[in-house]
């Protein structure tokens, strides 16, 4: 699964994307796995209320299932326009 990070999430984790193997059933499960990896992940995912997630380039929720998903992106609330 490809994991993408944008804005300050990318900066905290230190890479724009990475490919990982996961058995997590939901986004929240994936976040738990990532948090357990290293401090930089724990720091990036410290406050899920400050984060948004997209599954295969569609906005989703943290309780969304990961079955069949190829790309998950984490980022702060968007500031376009």
């Amino acid at each position, binding site marked *: 699964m490809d994991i*993408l990070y*944008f*804005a*300050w999430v*990318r900066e905290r984790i230190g890479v724009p994307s990475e490919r990982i193997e996961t058995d997590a059933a939901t986004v929240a499960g994936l976040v738990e796995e990532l948090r357990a990896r290293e401090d930089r992940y724990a720091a990036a995912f410290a406050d899920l209320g400050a984060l948004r997630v*997209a599954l295969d*380039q*569609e*906005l989703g929720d943290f309780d969304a299932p990961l079955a069949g998903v190829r790309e998950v*992106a984490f*980022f*702060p*609330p*968007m*500031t*376009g*326009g």
Partner: protein
Amino acid sequence: MRISVQDGAFDFAAQARAFAADAAGMGAIVTFTGVVRDLDGGGLEAMEIEHYPGMTEKAISAIAQEARTRWALGDVLVIHRHGRLVPGEQIMMVATAAPHRGDAFAAAEFLMDYLKSRAPFWKREITAAGAHWVDATDADEAALKRW
């Protein structure tokens, strides 16, 4: 409907001219242009705009399609830049054409409200003191509630 996500500058007036010329039979044309504004106290060297290639175009297309289902529109144009911009540069524009002015205005405001909070762009302000990610505002999120 035309959507462009690009790093290069665009010519707002030329885009508006072409959009209006193609809007046969429409009675109302609204354009919005967003310009990089200096900080209230000054000192903005640049605004850097990060985006999510692939998702950005999809998200904007979905927003524009939604506008077309809600209002009687003839055409919609959205241009949004990413990369490094300096104060005074145009960041983005939307244009809407409709038979009636109410639809053209409502659709343009709807597009702006959704682009602000639902299209995957992130702004970073660069000053002599360093770089600072722009926070999303409660007002921008609240603006979506009216639609």
